[in-house]
């Protein structure tokens, strides 16, 4: 049986064997926050958490990360690397190349940061689905997770992954033992490559901004429907921006805009998922709010009714 408190003490004991300083990649999500809390107990001030603003973050994400870590009493360094990430992704349309490019860009930032702290280790909140889906040997690559399959072959840091054998539900159980709680709609998985893999096809600042706004609406409306007791809270819910445009009519004028796909799923470990049966009234509210408030950009909203398998939860 998995006993979270035993896991905590074993993880801290093995982290204590590592000498010198470590950089830890944090996103504010549950995996890296739990990894940071564990590592902090072993490393203390020899631990240097780094949060990278990739430019692909959700609305209000940086502020939320600051809140999470100030509650834990751990200091973090925020690095704005968005220019570097957007430049690296110019002209990239293939989702696998996207993910690998993002993984490599992350590592280059951490290498730079490790130098300034004179750190020899990079700690990551990698969990089981990350390395499983990244594939290797006879295991097929479903998608390269930025922190595993996206790592360059050579980099100058020793990698430490204390949560490697855990799934999300187990990480959440460990978080509870450590007193870490996520607030509201932030309590859901969010991939490291962020909105870059929710903007289908080439990533531009304009498209990321549309996706960010639509995503915020989806999250607000679904969370508020949950608070009103209309629906159980899905395991994960978000907006993806499709690459194709379609025709519409707005106030007797022809429109030609983007399509937003709403995705919401039920799962516990993310290795299988079923689409959430969100009532039409809730979907209609989301659709109207997106198409009214974003009328210059989006004139169509669709709901994704596919399970995993055959789909994956994210679109890329």
């Amino acid at each position: 049986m998995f006993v979270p408190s035993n896991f905590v003490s074993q993880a801290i004991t093995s982290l204590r064997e590592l000498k010198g300083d470590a950089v830890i990649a944090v996103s504010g999500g549950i995996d890296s926050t739990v990894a940071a809390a564990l590592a902090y107990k072993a490393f203390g001030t020899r631990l240097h958490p780094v949060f990278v603003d990739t430019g692909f973050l959700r609305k209000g994400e940086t502020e939320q990360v600051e809140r999470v870590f100030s509650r834990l009493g751990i200091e973090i360094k925020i690095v704005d690397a968005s220019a570097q990430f957007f430049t690296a992704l110019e002209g990239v349309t293939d989702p696998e190349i996207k993910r690998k490019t993002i993984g490599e860009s992350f590592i280059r930032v951490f290498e730079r940061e490790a130098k300034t702290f004179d750190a020899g280790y990079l700690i990551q909140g990698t969990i089981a689905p990350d390395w499983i889906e990244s594939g290797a040997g006879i295991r097929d690559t479903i998608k390269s997770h930025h922190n595993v399959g996206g790592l360059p072959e050579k980099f100058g840091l020793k990698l430490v992954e204390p949560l490697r054998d855990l799934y999300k539900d187990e990480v959440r159980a460990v978080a509870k033992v450590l007193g870490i709680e996520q607030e509201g709609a932030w309590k859901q998985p969010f991939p490291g490559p962020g909105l870059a893999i929710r903007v289908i096809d080439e990533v531009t600042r304009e498209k990321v901004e549309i996706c960010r706004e639509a995503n915020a609406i989806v999250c607000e409306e679904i969370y508020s429907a949950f608070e009103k007791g209309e629906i159980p809270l899905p395991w994960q819910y978000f907006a993806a921006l499709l690459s194709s445009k379609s025709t519409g009519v707005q106030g007797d004028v022809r429109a030609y805009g983007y399509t937003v796909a709403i995705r919401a799923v039920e799962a516990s470990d993310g290795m299988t998922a079923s689409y959430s049966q969100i009532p039409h009234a809730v979907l209609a509210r989301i659709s109207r709010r997106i198409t009214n408030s974003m009328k210059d950009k989006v004139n169509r909203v669709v709901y994704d009714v596919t399970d995993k398998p055959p789909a994956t939860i994210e679109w890329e």
Partner: protein
Amino acid sequence: MKIFVIDNGSQWTHRIWRTLRDLDVETQIIANSTPLEKLKDVDGLVLSGGSMRVGKGESDACEVGGNNIVYAKEFGKPVLGICAGFQIIAQAYGGTVKPAKTPEFGAVELEIDFADDLFASLSKRFTVWASHNDEVASAPHFITLAHSKDCAIHAFKHNSLPIYGTLFHPEVQHTQNGEAILENFVRVCKR
């Protein structure tokens, strides 16, 4: 109780490991190239699924199929094959595996034909999750334990040996009674 998981590269190999661990079984994931001699003190084996197309002969290549046939035929103790692992067992005993007429991905309604061993004390009909391109078309020496609308052999057991298989995935969270099925296999290993 020691049950090892033979890794055929499934997305859910580690889920089999997790479920067995949660059932307080001593378990380990091992490569499908592991020699049988190294498994002398193991009480049972689970052959995972994988991306190999058994129905197209891909598992015949030893760098892909490993020692699965040896485990299926010579281990001498309980073996459970899942998905590709199940298909390899069927082939090892003279059955045929072919591309499925109707591949199944995601939820499948399972109907139990014979509530023996694996399905002991479970309901007659429940939802399981599958993800397969190939299927077992015939399996001489095996008794069919369950089927679905589109697939006649979804689970079987050998008529005299403790060899079992399921095409669906009892190890994933979305399969109803999944843990109970694996627990039933653990019970078989304890006999």
